[in-house]
């Protein structure tokens, strides 16, 4: 177990050096969500006036501005779109001989996975704070206090770990960058639209609302929006965080098994 922790920290350090040396990727990953926040926020400013919008989505949200409504959604989008590329590191390691060298060494495989997940979570937390800061500067105001902030950060952390584990698993199974582009376009993007990130799902088609209930991305959005609202429904927040935790555990276990498939194919 200490091996996993030590190796995890060492490999997280490697990932951190990589990001620090080419910070442009982490910064570019922030551009898109800020455009969502500022342009989308302006474009759909009036949707909050549609009867039924955000009613009871966290009691007391009446009077919520659209910017305040989408800010938690945009934080989660940043986390998800960033973590979807976690597998890129694995693909690059496979294209070189780094993956083979690590697998033929005493390096802990769970640590290889967890390091990638942890580092993407750290980046997503920093990006999430930037997004919330920009929203605040633009006039959005959040409640929920320290507990709300911590719950939001926990949701970012869990969502990033879930998506990064899925991305790493794809990388190990498909062993190509193209597969990750497919994941991003065909899985991640629909997950965003089948959620309440930018629109109250009660105003969408019924099936969208149903799909959102089974969507881990929506769990994170609902948890964060609830935690940042005036009167948080903590049962709902913790329930969603619990579901996300379970999703992380399951996908991490599956991704660890994907190492075996990678070796069988080799």
């Amino acid at each position, binding site marked *: 177990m200490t091996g996993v922790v*030590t*190796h995890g920290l*060492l*490999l997280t*350090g*490697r990932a951190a*050096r*990589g990001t620090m*040396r*080419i910070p442009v990727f982490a910064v570019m990953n922030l551009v898109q969500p800020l455009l969502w926040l500022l342009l989308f926020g302006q474009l759909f400013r009036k949707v909050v006036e549609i009867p039924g919008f955000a009613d009871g989505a966290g009691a007391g949200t009446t009077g919520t501005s659209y910017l305040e409504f989408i800010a938690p959604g945009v934080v989660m989008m940043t986390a998800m779109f960033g973590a979807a590329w976690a597998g890129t590191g694995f693909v690059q390691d496979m*294209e*070189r*001989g*780094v993956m*083979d*060298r*690590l*697998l*033929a*060494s*005493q*390096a802990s495989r769970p640590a290889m996975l967890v390091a990638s997940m942890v580092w993407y979570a750290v980046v997503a937390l920093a990006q999430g704070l930037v997004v919330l800061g920009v929203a605040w500067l633009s006039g959005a105001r959040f409640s929920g206090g320290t507990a709300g902030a911590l719950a939001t950060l926990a949701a970012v952390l869990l969502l990033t770990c879930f998506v990064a584990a899925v991305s790493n698993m794809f990388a190990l199974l498909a062993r190509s960058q193209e597969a990750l582009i497919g994941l991003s376009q065909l899985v991640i993007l629909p997950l965003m639209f089948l959620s309440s990130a930018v629109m109250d799902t009660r105003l969408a088609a019924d099936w969208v609302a149903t799909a959102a209930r089974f969507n881990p991305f929506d769990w994170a959005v609902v948890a964060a929006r609830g935690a940042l609202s005036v009167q948080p429904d903590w049962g709902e927040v913790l329930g969603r965080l619990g579901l996300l935790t379970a999703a992380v555990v399951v996908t991490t276990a599956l991704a660890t098994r994907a190492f075996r498939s990678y*070796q*069988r194919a*080799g």
Partner: protein
Amino acid sequence: MHPTHVVGSPAAIEVTGLVKTYRSRRRVVRALDGLDLSAAPGAVLGLLGPNGAGKSTTVRILATLSTPDSGVARVAGHDVLREPGAVRRAIGYVAQRPVTEPMDTGRENLVLAGRLQGLSGPEAHARAVELLGRFGLEDAADRLVRTYSGGMARRLDVAVGLVHRPQVLFLDEPTTGLDPHARAEMWAEIASMAGEEGMTVVLTTHYLDEADALADRLVIVDHGRVVIQGTPDELKDRLQGDGVTVSLHDDDAAARAAEVADRVPHVGEVTRDGRLLRARAASGATALPVLLAALDAAGIDVREARLSRPSLDDVYRQHTGRTFSAAASEEVGA
């Protein structure tokens, strides 16, 4: 070194009946077809063969990166399927492709590799300094690996493989893609480390001269099987001399030329193939003028005459009846 078994000293590598098939698009490719080999501790074993012969597959199985369909492989006394962890502790593996992180420095790569292989922080730093010095990379120690030349990057790859002082080191085509100077440097490194600490080195290559310079024992692999094995001297004896090819104007002239060539001293193994006359000579440079003079004296007009140094191709032609120059030339570009 001959593979004589020393009592009480188990073979570093012991492979019996290894079979591995790949399925791709309904086609079953038999990469290994009952491969057997062994290496004594402290020896350098050269695995020689063209692209697709099964060299890399063999090494990947021995390094626990792939699993055989059947057969037994033991490395440093441990079964690769039953005790992969013990095998991984005993080995260093340098893949065909670079094994370092290009966005880390040489030192960072070595320290990380050392720590992942179980060295403490101070041990890993000390070992990194030692290896950087030994591989002539002190000046580049704190530069990013992506700025390294091909030869420097490859030396760092080997250093990474050595970081935990493995019992068995696998080098998969360590000099492919390197310029002649960098290749010579790499050879010197491999030769000097092979003598140390009783480490066994398994080297795959498609260069006969490389295997010749470095290996105590050569195993030539083709179609997933061992074609021939022995010490470089034994193999060279079978490949003695140069090839001589003389092209004549017609079949009749070639037939008469063959009769003449048979009587020329130091020219042997004369065969005729249409208008081509092939022969072997211990020293082609000495024998060719004599042969041409004899043909001239017999009034036979020669269109073209060529000498060829013995090559891996010749060994292959001799033992497999086919050439792999096409496969080998493809591989140079890869």
